[in-house]
């Protein structure tokens, strides 16, 4: 029971962070909301008996991906977007998006709550050993060795791609520092 209460607490925390991501005008505030979500989800992983995944979650998502995002926001020196909530699209578009998202979410929520609740566990592994890093490692380097290697190739391709995309040709000035063409107000 205590576990469930904790679970609901952290789930609500994750949702709160998610709302902040969507609603805050300033991207840095969104990023902090996302950080909160990541940490809450890591806590949920721990409650699921998988501290290994929780740590990986924080290292990869919070420590690498989100840092990159925050870095990009700061690097781009965006004009001060102001505080408070974001400017959305026009009202009909907004309502349409809200309707669509609510429909999707509701549908999935319904499925989650009713259809799958009674699925029995076939159980090919013990839950206590599931949480061990050794179990995960044996699966990762045994059954899933090929996908693992493919993932490493994917990461290599991503590195090369990122370098190729952001590299500026020799001799070009740092355009990134130029002021915005519409507004001559300097970068923040």
């Amino acid at each position: 029971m205590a576990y469930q209460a904790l679970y609901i607490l952290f789930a609500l925390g994750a949702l709160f962070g998610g709302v902040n991501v969507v609603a805050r005008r300033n991207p840095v505030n969104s990023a902090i909301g996302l950080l909160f979500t990541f940490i809450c989800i890591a806590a949920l992983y721990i409650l699921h008996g998988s501290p290994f995944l929780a740590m990986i979650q924080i290292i990869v998502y919070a420590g690498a991906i989100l840092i990159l995002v925050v870095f990009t926001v700061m690097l781009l020196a965006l004009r001060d977007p102001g505080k408070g909530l974001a400017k959305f699209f026009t009202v009909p578009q907004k309502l349409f998006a809200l309707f669509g998202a609510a429909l999707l979410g509701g549908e999935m929520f319904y499925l989650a709550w009713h259809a799958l609740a009674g699925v029995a566990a076939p159980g090919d592994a013990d839950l206590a050993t599931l949480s061990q890093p050794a179990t995960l490692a044996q699966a990762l380097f045994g059954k899933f060795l090929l996908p693992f290697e493919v993932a490493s190739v994917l990461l290599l391709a991503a590195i090369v791609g990122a370098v190729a995309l952001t590299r500026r040709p020799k001799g070009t000035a740092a355009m990134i520092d130029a002021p915005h063409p519409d507004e001559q107000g300097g970068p923040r």
Partner: protein
Amino acid sequence: MSFWLALLIAMAKLLVLMALFLAATAYNTLYERRVVAPIQQRIGPNRAGPWGLLQPIADAVKLFFKEDIVTARSEKFLYLLAPIIAVSCALLYIVAVPFGPEIPGLQNAPSAWNKFSMLDLNVAVLYTFAVSSLAVYGVLLGGWAGNSKYSLLGGMRSGAQMISYEIAMGLSIMPAVMSAGSLSLHDIVAAQHDMWNVLRLPWGPVGFFIFMMAMLAEANRAPFDLVEAEQELVGGYHTEYSSMKFGAFFVAEYGNLITVSALIVTFYLGGWQGLPFINLGLPAWLSPWLGLVWFGLKTLILVAALIWIRWTFPRPRYDQLMGYGWKIFFPLALANLFVAGLLMYVGQRLGIGYFG
């Protein structure tokens, strides 16, 4: 053992650990100043109390009574959040460090709880990574929220630096993890009972060196303290902070210095194990307490060594710093990991325990 008893033990351990850690952090500032003074042929602070022992308290009082400035047009929430993240990451960092073997009298407790550390986590290595990657946010946000270009530059530099050196750090401790066959820090220390990892040629010294450099960069210590390069960036990411918010960054920095030394000791210098090859012939009941003494002694010496390094070397240029990280430490750590793995495999095949 009931849930509540375990909780009680955990709370008691946490209380003792936090109190000791904060006291050690406060006195670490004095320690640094007293260690650096002879290097510069000075005496160091010796006025507040006998041998200057009350100096940290005097510093804290001074910081408390300073004016708390919030810069104009700064993001108030993040401005407040950054020192909180910094100091709480410093406190979270020490939690996984093993200070000694089993606590006498708690043999019947679950194995995660009966040791001289907060918790014998089975993913403690990853935990330290996770906390150190969260600590970047304190610096990055502190630099950004102050609405000042110098602190922003300091924060950006530290972000890039910490991410870059995290890779070399992770790869350089992997041989130690492989040799112990576990991600638990207690197991890593226990695997060094006959031989410290640093003595395991060839991978030990190399890994130790890379890990120490990476940890210096992670903790933003000189010579890798470009984050707060006074000559270029004023005070770095905490330029715009004053009073106890600055104090929080300060506590985080000196707490991290202790934790970093403790982690280096844990991974490469045998943790709470005594000297290898030498049996002092002390009674067995003393060994848990002796473990604490060994650990404290090693950490103290290593902190002094890091201070010594800080006050000896000049700072590298920023591009040189990133160059070291990516072009020297990262490939070297990777090669070291490969060599260590190969030697361990061969050693296991031939029945040689030397390589781990």
